[in-house]
């Protein structure tokens, strides 16, 4: 029964490009990228109880590193991709060390401030980043000689990366380490009395979550062939956090659903009104006040209640 559902989903995702037009294929690719990004943030926010408002750092930094290396150093994708991931992860090691001096709101403010450093650098260090113009003129990689320039081929590429990313994150959460991580979220004092090294557990999660953020950053820059400081802004971090919370933090499906909702809202509503920021602000306020647990747990609870009611 469960397998049948998974198989159905797999077929639907694989067949989608044959049914849908290019606009929808591209939109879905963007949803994959946003979903990977939100899922990586969810490791920290949902499972670790560490609310980061600086997660855009990892998407943006990886994208900038990859773009800069290919534009200014003329390196190929085979080299820039691992180098960008490595560089981003190393910066995350340092940022995590600083941010985890605090927890809770302190952590939130420090991650926000640190991500502003990167944002400011992208804006101001014009000789390297081309400032407000952003880095343009990028190409997509061609793994195994397959060009990703078409909407469909990129769709499958993004799908494959997303499936791998989310599978590995799901395994991480289900592992003993993941159990310990949730323990540090719920009862950090008890966890350290039980012999768990709470700080190190959090730091590893911070770095791991940044790594997958960086992976989504590569997808992002490949898709857009362009990167602008706006990708490093508070708005970008906030969007991801909103996706996690709207969908349901601390669940696997939550951030994926949340990211999809945000991406659809952004695409459709923006077509009619110009004010995406204002809409996002209202969605933020409404979700926090009226649906703090998020869509996925909310729907699941409704479903369970309905089933109970039907079976009497």
């Amino acid at each position, binding site marked *: 029964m469960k397998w049948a559902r998974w198989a159905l989903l797999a077929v639907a995702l694989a067949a989608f490009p044959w049914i849908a037009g290019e606009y929808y294929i591209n939109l879905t690719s963007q949803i994959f990228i946003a979903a990977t990004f939100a899922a990586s943030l969810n490791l920290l926010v949902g499972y670790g109880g560490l609310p980061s408002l600086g997660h855009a750092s990892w998407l943006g930094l990886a994208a900038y590193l990859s773009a800069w290396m290919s534009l200014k150093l003329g390196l190929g994708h085979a080299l820039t991709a691992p180098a960008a991931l490595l560089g981003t992860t190393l910066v995350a090691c340092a940022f995590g060390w600083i941010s985890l001096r605090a927890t809770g709101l302190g952590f939130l*403010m*420090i991650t926000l401030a640190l991500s502003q450093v990167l944002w400011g650098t992208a804006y101001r260090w014009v000789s390297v980043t081309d400032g407000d113009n952003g880095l343009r003129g990028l190409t997509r990689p061609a793994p195994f000689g397959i060009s990703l320039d078409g909407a469909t081929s990129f769709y499958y590429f993004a799908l494959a990366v997303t499936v791998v990313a989310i599978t590995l994150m799901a395994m991480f959460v289900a592992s003993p380490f993941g159990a310990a991580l949730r323990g540090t979220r719920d009862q950090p004092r008890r966890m350290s009395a039980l012999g768990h090294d709470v700080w190190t557990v959090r730091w590893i999660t911070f770095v791991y979550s940044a790594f997958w953020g960086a992976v989504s950053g590569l997808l992002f820059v490949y898709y857009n062939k362009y990167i602008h400081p706006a990708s490093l802004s*508070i708005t970008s971090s906030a969007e991801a956090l909103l996706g996690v919370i709207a969908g349901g933090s601390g669940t696997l499906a939550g951030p994926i659903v949340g990211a999809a909702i945000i991406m659809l809202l952004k695409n459709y509503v923006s077509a009619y009104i110009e004010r995406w920021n*204002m809409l996002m*602000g209202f*969605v933020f306020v409404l979700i926090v006040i009226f649906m*703090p647990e998020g869509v996925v747990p909310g729907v699941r609870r409704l479903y369970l209640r309905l089933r109970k009611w039907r079976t009497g």
Partner: protein
Amino acid sequence: MQYWIIQTLNSLALGGLLFLLAAGFSLIFGLMRIANLTHGSLYMLGAYVGVTILKFVPNLWLAALIGGAVIAIFGGLIERFILRALAGNALGQVLVTLGISFIVADFCLIVWGGDPIPVQTPLALQQPLRVGGVAFPTYRLVVLAIAVVTAVALYLLMERTRIGAMIRAGVDDMQMARAVGIPVSKLFTAVFCLGAGLAGAGGIIGGPIMSAYPGLDADMLPLALIVVMLGGVGSLLGAFVGSFLIGAIYTFGTALLPDLAYVILFLPMIVVIAFRPRGLFGRQTV
């Protein structure tokens, strides 16, 4: 010589404006444990509201008073009707303030448009002050003076009045403050209004220096954050020292190393967080 004097005064004026912004942020965080991410927006909203008030009241100081009051009321409404509903849910409160900041940003864009709006320096202060052949920009001196006077007033409020004593008690130990019968709820609203009002007035007073433009909020909020984390949460002295420190680093950093000024700006905060998480003058860890 003249160049460095101007830069020094610029840094002091920026420090003064930062103090108006950060003092409120710090008190709100220290007392209510709310990281008020609308604080930058309140500053920007103040600047814009000031622009409009100045069309009817051609006096910057009066405009700052009126505008400050308007923003204070706006802040009070946020506290009473939204933050209060989320009491105990610290993350929810932060996210709501973040959401409101997006709404305010777009609201300003709709009402006042996307172009920067310059604010006239009051006529009487347009002439530089000349002392021994060196010209001092008068308005910046006045801004500095206002910040210092505000700091002294806040200090007296905190140290010499009953309300101040209650705020200090709340910052140190909220449960104890409740237990001894301090009207915490009213205090919250009062402090939130005060903080919002200071930020709003700061936006107007800063108008002639920075003008009003979209993105002013996103420029100011991180500065307030670093000031507070540097100086220590809930500490007025910390906010004061931190503001002028950051004002100086920002101004001279931009003048000397424009590319990396923004990175340099954050270095002291990073060092402080790494080695003294309470901040320079804070009594509690962030």
